[in-house]
């Protein structure tokens, strides 16, 4: 029944937002990290979402009709910020270069906080969608009583 597949659509939304939130939290925790195993300062990470039709036994023949089981989402890739790092003049710092500058992550904590709140709100919206669909299924079962 198609309503059940929309539960997995919402679940995919929750998973995607959770992944994104995890990356944002990592960014915030590493906003001042000047040293990484790969060398250089921490680079900001973000998730790129892509729409993905929920699993369905039908092929693309039905892709346009609503026989398809709804459109979920997945994290298509995790991208790293490739822009130049922020440089601050701190000659006494252990990671300072010969010119006295230290490379810091190019992260704006305020921005990532806002993104984190947005990811959290979207997560809750997906939870609400699951509750609503579950309700509908319950009421359909009611008809049998």
């Amino acid at each position, binding site marked *: 029944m*198609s*309503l059940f597949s929309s539960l997995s659509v919402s679940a995919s939304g929750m998973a995607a937002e959770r992944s994104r939130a995890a990356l944002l939290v990592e960014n915030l925790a590493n906003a001042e990290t000047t040293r990484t195993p790969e060398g250089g300062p921490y680079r900001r990470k973000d998730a790129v*979402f892509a729409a993905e039709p929920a699993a369905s036994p039908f092929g693309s023949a039905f892709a346009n009709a*609503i026989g398809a089981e709804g459109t979920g*989402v997945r994290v298509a890739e995790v991208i790293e910020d490739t822009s130049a790092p922020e440089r601050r003049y701190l000659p006494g710092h252990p990671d300072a270069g010969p010119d006295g500058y230290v490379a810091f992550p190019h992260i704006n904590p305020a921005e990532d906080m806002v993104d984190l709140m947005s990811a959290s709100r979207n997560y809750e919206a997906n939870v609400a*969608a699951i509750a609503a669909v579950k309700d509908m299924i319950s009421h359909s079962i009611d008809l049998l009583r």
Partner: protein
Amino acid sequence: MLDPVARSLERYMDLLATRQKLVASNIANAETPGYRTVDIDFESEFRGLVAGGQLRAVEVSGLEVNHDGNNVNLDREARLLAENGLRFQVAEALLKGQVQAVREAISGGGSG
């Protein structure tokens, strides 16, 4: 055995379930770049004005598109979640009443 009203109620509930499924898809893709909000033309589908047997998903117009090409409005989707759910409950209650009435006619009111 049931009135034609029962058929209308069933179709109404079908459409609401489909609509809710699309709302769930919109919510899941609230941050997907390039994703456009989808819906069905509820009234036209209900009255049978749309040609063809399959329900058709349409892009919703009038929504603001952000810099990512995404136009999902969570407030709209949240409202629809609630509205679809309530309408579904109404239709289910009415449909139950129809079935109940037939059952009563069959049992003749219990003391017949």
